[in-house]
């Protein structure tokens, strides 16, 4: 503080300093005159006695702490001037750093706004998730209402309160039909978290089961765009009409990384279809610690109570864990390794950038050696010159960091926009990503670190004593001064290899994405619709209404077929049963479908499909896929065979039941793009609306634009009433490919970044090599080598580096490709185009990067370079 004050006061301090010395001089002259000198002689004597005033003033400034500051300013000015004089280098360095720091700051922005920014609730630092750990160490966060009540009482003065919240996707059918996110919460939620309604009110514990809803600000804007305060309006979720009683203030967005459109009392959550008397609905529980209470104290209290809860022995709670949830992502630490890997990968890009810039700076050292040697000879200390050079590199790096923040943010906003558009279709609104002071600090820290990292080695190198000797001999040759060249070559090779891996991975994924859109799944993705309906939680479909819905659908002229299924093609993953045929046990995927299924997908069967009677009684018959037939009964006709299917689960043990195969269906694509394909499928009969068949698929006639409203009308009608949102399997597949697309984009981006850096690195390496070996090149030229040969030779060396890198990178790519090959249907493990294009691109860029410096080498005056020694 004091030094800051002094600095601000600098001008007056300088004046005082001069005044003080002036006073001294005058007083001395007076004294000398008193002692009998003439004024003239006295003045001269006083000045001599005083000594070098300028030097002493400088020392005074140092004593006041001004000097470091002055030097820094001078260094900065000098560095900037130097950088401006070399626009090419400066632009390259700033761009490389901006890209490398940009991707890092973008990643950090995501991390910061999800894992560091506290939740916008009261007492965020006391917020926790209540997790039970059983004797086997398994964790669960679900509790029944009576258990929650007991735990609330047990918490006493250690726990302020517990609440329940469950955030799920629902289909809103009024005011406009669209997907939305609903949070089912206990009545004390709002009051406990200090959430304030901007208009209207929140609901209380007494209203937990009442049909009321509180909208979020974004929810209100989405569902009632023309009404800023839609209090008293109705929203319909499933079959239930809810009255809007309030709209929350915009800053309250809940505790999850998606913003709910509306909050609904947890009492409205319906019991599931499988409504056995034993079954009790369970809720996930969170809460706030009492102010001042420690987590351990609260855990001890709650554990004591939880171990005595009346639960079956195998479900018994061994202890309670309170997982800290002060931010969106805090808590169980499961994400930590993923985050760590991401940061390591992204920071590696910065590492490559720094290594490259260090190379580049070393190459530049040639042009600066003379200047620096001169300064050292004139008496500048080595530390002083190193400091000056570091100031320069840190300045560049900070410039890069500044630009990087902007670039990172722009990229992130673009990505966020893309993701928001996609998520918006599912009714998901995410809290926006904001760059805050943490991001700026992170980028600045990276900038300083990067500046030091790429500046230090070259600075030490070019100020080393042997260079000064060389400079005294008026020579700028750097021969014999360099670190082993092999190190740099390896660095380049490593870079080339890693950018090749990333490029190829991006290429393989992109090629795959392109291919998958051409693959025929075995059904018409544009005409098969999946009736998404998130209404089960509020009002389960009963057997009757399920059947009625299907009857109603098939009566429509726009509908070619409708069927109830357990699993929808491309959505999720088929479960597996143990199936025994001819005494051999295999695991096969299975699906329960009704009698209209094959006709709905438009599949031609060998044999026959299920009869309506068979689906009602769940008769012991089965249709198998062609692949399954070949696996189970290789070489013999499947129809008429018997397969033993073991449907027992851990909860419900059952004897394996024999099923007679009545038909064989062609192979079609089932699982989503990420789960891998399994064509071995056994179809079992089940009636519509029966416990297992909850989903409906529809094949349409004609245009989707005509069919979709018709289907919606049926869903909203008396047969169903809960509404539905049909989406074609094409759309489903498109959504599922988004993660792959993002992965391909990131791999491609990092690969391109790596490639650009490799090019810069190579170019500087060659320039460096040329300087280092000008004698050798001179000899070559004198001995009659053509310039072309010199160029070829140097370029050849660079290509060798890159070749080495590729040799390292290719096996990695092949392994990765095989892995992809095994995981996803139709992916071509070795897309020839990608495997030819990426290395060719790498080679082309290498050659381009080399040609300019190599040609400069070839134009060397051989006599001059030979005379140097």
């Amino acid at each position: 503080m004091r030094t800051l004050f002094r600095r601000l006061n600098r001008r007056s301090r300088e004046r005082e300093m001069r005044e003080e010395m002036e006073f001294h001089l005058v007083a001395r002259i007076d004294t000398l005159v008193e002692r009998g000198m003439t004024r003239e002689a006295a003045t001269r004597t006083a000045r001599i006695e005083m000594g070098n005033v300028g030097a002493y003033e400088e020392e005074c400034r140092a004593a006041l702490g001004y000097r470091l500051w002055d030097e820094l300013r001078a260094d900065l000015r000098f560095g900037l001037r130097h950088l401006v004089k070399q626009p090419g280098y400066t632009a390259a360095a700033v761009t490389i750093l901006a890209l490398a720091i940009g991707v890092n700051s973008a990643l950090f922005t995501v991390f910061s706004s999800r894992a560091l920014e506290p939740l916008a609730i009261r007492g965020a630092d006391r917020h926790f998730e209540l997790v039970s750990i059983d004797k086997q160490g398994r964790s669960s966060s679900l509790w029944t209402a009576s258990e929650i009540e007991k735990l609330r009482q047990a918490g006493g003065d250690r726990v302020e309160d517990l609440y329940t919240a469950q955030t799920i996707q629902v289909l809103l059918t009024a005011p406009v039909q669209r997907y939305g996110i609903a949070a089912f919460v206990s009545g004390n939620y709002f009051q406990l978290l200090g959430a304030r309604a901007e208009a209207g009110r929140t609901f209380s514990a007494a209203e937990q089961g009442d049909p009321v809803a509180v909208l979020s600000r974004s929810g209100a804007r989405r569902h009632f765009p023309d009404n800023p305060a839609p209090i008293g309006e109705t929203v319909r979720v499933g079959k239930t009409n809810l009255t809007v009683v309030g709209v929350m203030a915009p800053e309250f967005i809940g505790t999850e990384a998606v913003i709910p459109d509306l909050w609904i009392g947890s009492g409205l959550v319906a019991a599931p279809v499988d409504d056995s008397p034993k079954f009790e609905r369970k809720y996930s529980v969170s809460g706030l610690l009492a102010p001042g209470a420690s987590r351990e104290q609260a855990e001890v209290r709650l554990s004591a109570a939880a171990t005595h809860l009346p639960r079956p022995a195998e479900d018994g709670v061994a202890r309670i864990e309170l997982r800290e949830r002060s931010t969106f992502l805090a808590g169980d630490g499961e994400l930590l390794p993923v985050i760590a890997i991401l940061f390591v990968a992204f920071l590696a890009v910065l590492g490559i950038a720094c290594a490259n810039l260090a190379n580049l700076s070393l190459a530049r050292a040639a042009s600066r050696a003379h200047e620096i040697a001169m300064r050292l000879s004139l008496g500048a200390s080595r530390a002083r010159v190193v400091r000056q050079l570091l100031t320069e590199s840190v300045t560049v790096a900070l410039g890069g960091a500044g630009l990087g923040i902007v670039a990172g943010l722009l990229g992130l906003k673009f990505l966020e926009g893309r993701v928001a558009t996609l998520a918006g279709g599912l009714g998901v609104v995410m809290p926006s990503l904001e760059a805050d002071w943490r991001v700026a600090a992170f980028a600045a820290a990276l900038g300083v670190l990067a500046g030091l990292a790429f500046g230090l080695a070259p600075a030490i190198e070019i100020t080393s004593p042997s260079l000064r000797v060389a400079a005294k001999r008026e020579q700028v040759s750097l021969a014999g001064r360099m670190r082993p060249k092999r190190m740099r070559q390896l660095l380049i090779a490593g870079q080339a290899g890693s950018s090749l891996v990333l490029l190829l991975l991006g290429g393989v994924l992109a090629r795959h994405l392109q291919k998958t859109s051409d693959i025929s799944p075995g059904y018409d993705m544009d005409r098969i619709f999946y009736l998404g309906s998130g209404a089960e939680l509020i009002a389960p479909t009963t057997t009757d209404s399920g059947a009625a819905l299907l009857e109603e659908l098939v009566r429509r002229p726009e509908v070619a077929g409708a069927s109830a299924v357990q699993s929808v093609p491309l959505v999720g993953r088929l479960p597996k049963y143990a199936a025994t045929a001819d005494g051999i046990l295999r695991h096969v995927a299975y699906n329960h479908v009704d009698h209209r299924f094959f006709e709905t997908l438009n599949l031609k069967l060998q044999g026959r499909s299920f009869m309506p009677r068979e689906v009602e009684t769940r008769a012991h018959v089965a249709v198998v896929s062609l692949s399954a037939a070949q696996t189970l009964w290789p070489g013999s006709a499947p129809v008429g065979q018997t397969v033993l299917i073991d449907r027992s689960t851990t909860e419900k043990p059952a004897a394996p039941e024999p099923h007679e195969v009545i038909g064989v269906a062609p192979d079609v694509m089932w699982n989503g793009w990420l789960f891998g394909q399994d064509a071995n499928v056994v179809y079992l009969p089940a009636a519509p609306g029966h416990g297992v068949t909850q989903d409906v698929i529809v094949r349409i006639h004609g245009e989707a634009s005509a069919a979709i409203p018709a289907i919606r009308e049926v869903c909203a009608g008396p047969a169903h009433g809960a509404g539905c949102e049909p989406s074609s399997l094409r759309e489903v597949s498109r959504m599922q490919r988004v993660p792959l697309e993002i992965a391909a984009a990131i791999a491609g981006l990092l690969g391109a970044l790596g490639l650009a850096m490799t090019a810069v690195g190579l170019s500087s390496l060659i320039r460096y090599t040329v300087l280092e070996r000008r004698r050798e090149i001179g000899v070559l030229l004198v001995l009659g080598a053509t310039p072309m040969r010199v160029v070829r030779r140097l370029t050849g060396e660079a290509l060798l580096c890159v070749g080495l890198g590729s040799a390292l990178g290719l096996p990695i790519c092949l392994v990765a490709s095989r892995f992809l090959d095994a995981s996803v249907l139709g992916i071509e493990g070795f897309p020839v185009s990608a495997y030819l294009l990426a290395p060719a691109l790498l080679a082309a860029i290498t050659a381009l990067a080399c040609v300019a410096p190599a040609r400069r080498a070839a134009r060397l005056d051989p006599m001059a370079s030979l005379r140097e020694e």
Partner: protein
Amino acid sequence: LASSILPGTLDLLILKAVSLGSQHGYGILLRIEQTSENSLLVEQGALYPALYRLETAGLISSEWGQSENNRRAKFYSLTPAGRKRLREETANWKRLVEAMAMALNAKAVAE
């Protein structure tokens, strides 16, 4: 015969001079000259970096005032920390002088 000051001792001399009462830079110089009977000479400009160092270290404090011939001058005085340092340094110096004297007066015993 005038001798130049040993390096590092100027600070001690200044502290001593200031301890005799608040004084401006030139006055401090005169005091050093008088008390040492002109046997210790400083290049006068060197006084000021030393004063600034001591002030930054909090051993002396300064204040602008009027000099005896009615000019504006900066007066230095000892802070408590400076007083403590002066005591310590004086003791150190005495020990050093004694040790040096003993060492320089030693007779060749062996011969």
